[in-house]
């Protein structure tokens, strides 16, 4: 085994070891420590993805002396490495972009604990990305859930407790269903590691035994994770939670937490159940219907919203719908498109929250989009970031969102029939609606008005500006050179 193959465990352990140290240090020290750890995580993820793509295949990392089927394992291939890189990048950049706001909005006595929670969140999402074991998935999903709740209520603002309560109720329901699903699956197959689960499940399905419990457990796990990642009818906790948290926390919640759950679901469906069993049980049809509703109604909700942060939050509902729609085709191309859309949407959405925050900061703290007039001139980089993020989510060429929309449409085309028709119509309708609400805001922020000064805001925000510029570059790079990443993801998912 080469030395670089230890990188995934280093990625998991480094923030895990930083977390207790953060909790006992002074706020300044823990801020330094968590920033360093997240930057270091980005470097390690980048090294990992370079090595994995040159290796060409996947490999298994035993956690301890005993591998499958007795002990825990990690599984690393191109898709996991790219998702992990995205997680580290988003964590580091959103911490940098939100640093000032964290200082302002979070009480001094809670700052160290905020960084502790961030570090544990980073550990948990990396572990969710790499795990080869469904129960390890559940353990780190618990950490993710509690961490996300803490990120919401750490800001002592009225309404954030209510939002956190709502979030907790919905998410614990999701965790419960997920755990029930695991129990049923374990009772039938006797395994917790993905490859062995798949072997036994195939044996049972082909023999026609216990088909109904298997379908029920797939349904329970899928619905559990769908609730946790806010698929349409279960999205009610989302807007308040995202818009009430501090900007860095909003970025993390929208781009890391919900995406980690969906990636775990994709891994479960492909590696533990097999796409044939998934489509055979009919669970994919349920997911498809909900995702189409999510795409349309999430966008309509966003159009109705005048508060920019809530608008951006509602657009997440629609984008989660896209990802679930791609998953519901049950084909490898669909899963690859979903994984790519996870990356593209996370990079865009994690950029939008700090950008909106900066724009509203130069507009006197107002978040209503009417009040943002001319703010694109006052904060040029934030304006640019908002435009790039909005265009990426809408699906304008040369940006990440365009590539992933093409792949989703291709996957729909491969499926054919009514499903293709409905998906394409939903994509078209949602694109129009995206244009409506994003273009409205883009026009407003670049529209001069007499009451609104057009001179650059004198305050310097080096961290926000730097992080937003990096985000913009990443989005453009993903749009132009997205093909190699897509090919890496596709080949590795085919080989899963």
């Amino acid at each position, binding site marked *: *085994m080469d030395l670089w193959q230890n990188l995934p*465990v280093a990625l998991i*352990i480094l923030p*895990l*070891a930083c*977390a207790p140290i953060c*909790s*006992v240090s002074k706020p300044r020290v823990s801020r330094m420590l968590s920033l360093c750890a997240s930057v270091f995580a980005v470097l390690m993820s980048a090294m990992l993805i370079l090595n994995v793509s040159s290796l060409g295949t996947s490999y298994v*990392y*035993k*956690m*301890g*002396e*005993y591998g499958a*089927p*007795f*002990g*825990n394992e990690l599984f690393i291939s191109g898709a996991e490495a790219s998702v992990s890189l995205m997680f580290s990048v988003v964590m580091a950049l959103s911490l940098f972009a939100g640093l000032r706001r964290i200082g302002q909005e979070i*009480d001094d*006595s*809670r700052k160290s*604990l*905020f960084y*502790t*929670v961030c570090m*544990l969140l980073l*550990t*948990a999402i990396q*572990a969710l990305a790499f795990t080869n*074991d469904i*129960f*390890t998935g559940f*353990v780190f999903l*618990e*950490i993710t859930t*509690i*961490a996300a*709740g*803490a990120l919401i*209520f750490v800001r002592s603002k009225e309404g954030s407790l209510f939002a956190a309560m709502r979030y907790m109720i919905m998410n614990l329901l999701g965790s419960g269903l997920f755990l029930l699903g695991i129990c*049923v699956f374990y*009772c*039938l*197959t*006797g*395994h917790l590691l993905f490859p062995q689960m798949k072997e*036994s499940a195939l*044996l049972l399905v082909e023999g026609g035994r*216990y088909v*109904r*419990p298997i379908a*029920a*457990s797939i349904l329970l796990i899928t619905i559990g994770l769908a609730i946790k990642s806010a698929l349409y009818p279960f999205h009610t906790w989302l807007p308040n939670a995202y818009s009430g948290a501090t900007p860095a926390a909003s970025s993390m919640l929208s781009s890391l937490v919900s995406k980690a759950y969906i990636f775990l679901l994709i891994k479960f469906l492909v590696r533990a159940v097999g796409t044939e069993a998934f489509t055979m049980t009919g669970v994919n049809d349920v997911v498809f219907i909900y995702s189409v509703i999510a795409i349309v109604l999430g966008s309509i909700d966003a159009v109705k919203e005048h508060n920019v942060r809530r608008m951006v939050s509602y657009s997440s509902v629609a984008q989660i719908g896209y990802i679930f729609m791609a998953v519901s085709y049950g084909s490898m191309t669909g899963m690859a498109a979903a994984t790519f859309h996870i990356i593209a949407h996370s990079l865009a959405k994690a950029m939008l929250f700090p950008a909106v925050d900066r724009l509203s900061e130069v507009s006197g703290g107002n978040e209503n*989009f*009417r009040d943002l007039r001319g703010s694109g001139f006052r904060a040029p980089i934030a304006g640019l970031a908002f435009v790039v993020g909005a265009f990426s989510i809408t699906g304008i060429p040369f940006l990440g969102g365009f590539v992933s929309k093409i792949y989703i449409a291709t996957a729909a085309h491969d499926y054919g029939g009514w499903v293709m028709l409905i998906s394409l119509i939903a994509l078209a309708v949602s694109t129009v609606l995206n244009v409506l609400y994003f273009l*409205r805001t883009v*026009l*407003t922020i670049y*529209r001069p008005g*007499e009451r609104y000064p057009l001179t650059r805001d004198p305050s310097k925000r080096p961290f926000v500006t730097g992080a937003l510029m990096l985000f913009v570059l990443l989005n453009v790079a993903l749009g132009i050179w997205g093909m190699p990443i897509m090919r890496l993801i596709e080949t590795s998912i085919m080989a899963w």
Partner: protein
Amino acid sequence: MKKSSEAFKNWLLSGSDPLEEEMIETLSDDAAEEKQAEEASPRAKKERRSLKQYLYDSGLYRPVRILSSVALCVMLIVMLMATVMDMPYFGQADTLVDSEVSEFYVKHTLEHTGATNIITGIILNFRGFDTLGESHVLFIAVCSVIILLKMTPKEEDPFLHVHSDDALDRKLEKDLILSSLSRILFPLILMFGVYIILNGNISPGGGFSGGAVIGAGLILYLSAYGYKRIQRFFTYKTFKTVSCLALLCYTSSKTFHFVTGANDIHVPISLGTPGTIFSGGLLLPLNIFVGLVVACTMYTLYTLFRKGDF
């Protein structure tokens, strides 16, 4: 209905539709916009609220909500029952559950881990990564509760005054039965907790259960003697130091185990004589670390919910 058809007609005849009007409103001149915004926003709010209000006021809202949630629960129950009916019976011979995995655990745990308690062998060795995550679940839970409930000292809260140490302790002073009983019980409970932790690898128990016992003992001590007495040996600082050190030691020894195991490096850690306390290699220290974390977590959760501070 009529309104929407009119809007559609307007739009078709290249007139304006409400959304477009709204955009024009937004992009119009300042004075006009200000005036219109003032007019428009209360109106819009009123309309939106009235729709919601209408739903609430119609009298159907509550019964429909209750009925639909009951129906949903019944559906879920029926579905789960149907699933359970189809599941294999407990102990049925031809299932896949009694697979190689459980057989391996039962037959070979002792020889591979040196633990006569198979459960400890599984959770701290074979599936050690899960347990590492699980102890951090406890840690993040306690961090979240501290974020949520711990009061900052400078807060001039009337609640803080009522719940000061003295006020809380004064209530306890009179309870003779509790204090004299816990004088006998507390050392025994503590000793029993330590016993469970130390014997984790040879008899039922381990870090989690032993830590819970110690935590319960600390809670008993607090209830019997009050905050002043327990602060002589257990403060917020103690909690932070102990749990931080225990977690760091736990993480580093598990990392050592993961890395050496995955890279097939043979580590000469003796497994000792099975059945003695000093056996099972790393299991004993791991149990101690887990026990410390659990005990601190238990006590901290209790005191935060009771007083909001240490």
